[in-house]
């Protein structure tokens, strides 16, 4: 018996090319239509995903500890971190903006990392009924990934816009790059996660 559920293409030794959705025998290793490498399931999907997520977690520390931007006002430098910015905005009454930043820069990356961890963890362990939801979770995670870059773009815009000489100017901090790294790596880790795995291993329960 194959490890894969019967209705899947994998069960028949067929792999779907991710780039062009062509179904072809996995033994070809390269999609006959578009040339991309194909596999029944992404190679070491779980391992790669986990590794990337861990890297993202590590990067998440400097992304929040280091200042994401420094405000220079009349000669005094005031660095601010992502969380610091959120707190500042909240204190100054900009609740919606604070919420947006908080969601986009704190909750989303954390959520993504948690979701990916969860997805990796539950592969093969959860009930089929949850498969649909997990797939949705995966779709959401994938979709939402790039939106965390909002904060970095905001920094880029503020740095370019607020240049008032000696009175007020803003300079980017190291956390911006670290945070971009987090976003990119979580995106890569979501990409390296093969969602078909969600549907695969639950077969065991049926049988």
């Amino acid at each position: 018996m194959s490890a894969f559920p019967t209705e899947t293409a994998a069960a028949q030794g067929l792999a779907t090319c991710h780039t062009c959705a062509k179904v072809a025998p996995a033994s070809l290793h390269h999609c006959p239509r578009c040339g991309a490498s194909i596999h029944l399931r992404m190679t070491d999907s779980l391992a790669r995903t986990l590794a990337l997520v861990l890297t993202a977690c590590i990067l998440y520390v400097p992304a929040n500890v280091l200042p994401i931007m420094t405000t220079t006002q009349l000669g005094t430098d005031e660095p601010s971190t992502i969380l610091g910015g959120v707190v500042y905005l909240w204190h100054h009454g900009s609740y919606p903006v604070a919420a947006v930043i908080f969601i986009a820069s704190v909750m989303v990356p954390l959520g993504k990392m948690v979701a990916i961890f969860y997805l990796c963890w539950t592969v093969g362990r959860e009930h089929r009924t949850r498969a649909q939801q997990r797939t949705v979770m995966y779709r959401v995670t994938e979709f939402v990934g790039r939106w965390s870059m909002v904060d970095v773009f905001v920094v880029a815009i503020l740095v370019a816009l607020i240049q008032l000489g000696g009175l007020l100017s803003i300079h980017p901090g190291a956390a911006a790059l670290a945070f971009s790294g987090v976003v990119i790596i979580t995106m890569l880790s979501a990409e390296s996660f093969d969602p078909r795995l969600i549907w695969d291993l639950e077969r065991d329960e049926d049988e």
Partner: protein
Amino acid sequence: MLRGVASDLPMTACLECDLLLPMPSVAEGERAACPRCKHLLISHPKDGFSRIQAFAISALVFLAFSFAFPFMTMKASGLENAMTLGQSVLELYENGQQALAFLVSCFIMLVPAVILVAVLAVSVPLARERGAPWLVPAARLVFTLSPWSMVEVFVIGVIVSLVKLMAMADIILGISFWSYAAFSVCLTASLSSFDKSWIWESIDRVSAR
């Protein structure tokens, strides 16, 4: 082409749940989804190629124009500063964040531009039902790069900055911003019609000739 047992239609497997099923044929304006996970399998947009091309060209035009004019201007207590789109990258570069500047420029300018060119490179021959040597690599490029275009994120970022600064300064959104917003809309419109399965199917069709 792989033929299914039950039909003569080519097979496809759902990318998300790997369900093997015959490729549905969709007419113009129709779309098909996986029965199990609801993942979109294929869609055939109305006036597909025209839409793709029209929006891609518009997007490129708007992108080009969005460099030429001021993007955003800030006025506070008599002091004023205007920025252009390019400056959002340049200022990062000049502040020592060269890597970040490169990343940002990729996400908001380079990657979308390359995608659009590739889209055109694919859709123009396909619209004429002709093949071209670059069809496959260009199509691959489009699908590989798609997740890395963050144009709408940038637009939201501008809005967030606007709201952030509204309290302490007068912010004026310049022509460049509206041009970039239009670029974003056209890019999305173009790509939404650029359905993966349908495009590859079409490539297959013209290449087979």
